[in-house]
């Protein structure tokens, strides 16, 4: 190996960066080569000078300025994080929020459609003829269909005073019991119904 090739190894040797074999190899060469020995001395000197800048330190005012900037930015990041957590968090949070919103909208739509599609209460079938009794023959007028319990949510302007309330018709009815006597003396049929005023 030539001295030129040794240069790089000597540069490592002076700081103890060579392992066993290489270290002894360079050491043996230095004993025999004054030029490389001079190079090693020079390198030790320049390394000592170079390492002297290790002691240099920054002005505390500079560090304070950096610290202030960092802490201000961190404060900004924290308040931004708070908002992000609330509205724009990670993917999981966004998916949760979207799911929740979907659930709300879906629930509202379902509730609305149920109210619109709800059929009116089915009136009982009119009784045309139940029996032809031997004792009584009475025609019973079919009872009017009851008012539906729930009404569709229709926004009405204001109730007009001229319109009569539908409850008046209901109040006019009075209960009537009709007794049917059949051929069999053990069987008696009772019919419970309403009688309208004026009927």
């Amino acid at each position, binding site marked *: 190996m030539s001295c030129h090739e040794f240069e790089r190894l000597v540069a490592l040797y002076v*700081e103890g960066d060579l392992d066993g074999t290489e270290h002894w190899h360079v050491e043996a060469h230095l004993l025999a080569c004054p030029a490389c020995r001079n190079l090693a001395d020079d390198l030790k000197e320049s390394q000592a*000078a170079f390492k002297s800048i290790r002691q240099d330190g920054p002005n505390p005012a500079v*560090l304070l300025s950096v610290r202030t900037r960092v802490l201000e930015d961190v404060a900004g990041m*924290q308040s931004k994080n708070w908002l992000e957590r609330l509205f724009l968090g990670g993917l999981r949070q966004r998916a949760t929020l979207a799911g929740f919103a979907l659930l709300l909208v879906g629930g509202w739509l379902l509730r609305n459609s149920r109210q619109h599609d709800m059929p009116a209460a089915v009136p009982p079938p009119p009784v045309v003829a139940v029996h032809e009794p031997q004792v009584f023959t009475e025609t019973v007028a079919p009872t009017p269909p009851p008012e539906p319990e729930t009404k569709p949510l229709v926004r009405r302007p204001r109730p007009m005073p001229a319109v009569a309330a539908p409850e008046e018709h209901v109040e006019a009815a009075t209960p009537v019991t009709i007794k049917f006597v059949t051929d069999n003396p053990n069987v008696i049929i009772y019919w419970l119904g309403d009688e309208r005023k004026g009927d």
Partner: protein
Amino acid sequence: MELSASQLWMSGADEEIEATAKLIERAITGDRTAFEEIVLQHERRVFTLAYRLLGTEEDAQDAAQEVFLRAFKYMRRFDTTRPLEPWLVRMTVNVCKRAGRGRTRTRSLFVYNDGAQQPDSGRDPYALMRAEEQKRVLYDVLTGLPEKERAAIVLRDLEGFSTAEVADILGSAEATVRSQISVARLKIRKAIDRMKGGRDVVS
């Protein structure tokens, strides 16, 4: 025997790691004083390393700020069973690598603030001038080195990491780092020889 930077950290490091872990935990939950404590503990090292890698105080300030902001952002990912400083050093190197590209600021020297580093009024003024000049030359050489050589020599000779640790921080092969360190040392020696012009080097 010289201890590497990480060996120094590891000596009596358990308590320090535990204390840092508590600070990190507090900082994550939004305790700003805990994060400020972390910054106080590491700002000098981070800033100094950034300055040595970038060569200007302004760039070093920007880099140090970015390092701490990144640290705050990714603190949840940090393994608190390990020392914090190597993580910050690695981050500083990465930030400086990016910041080093395309910057145009002119180099400025550190302001010496330690009492031990204040100019000694009883010392020979010519010796002080020579020391200043030598420092200027050293920073010139350092900033004139290619980026990878500069990072390797700064981490090995100024920050005190072992060659293996430098390779780990830089993500390079150890043989590559040894070669970069060796070349950089020879360049520094040549620059000091040129500066000396026959004068003694102030060490």
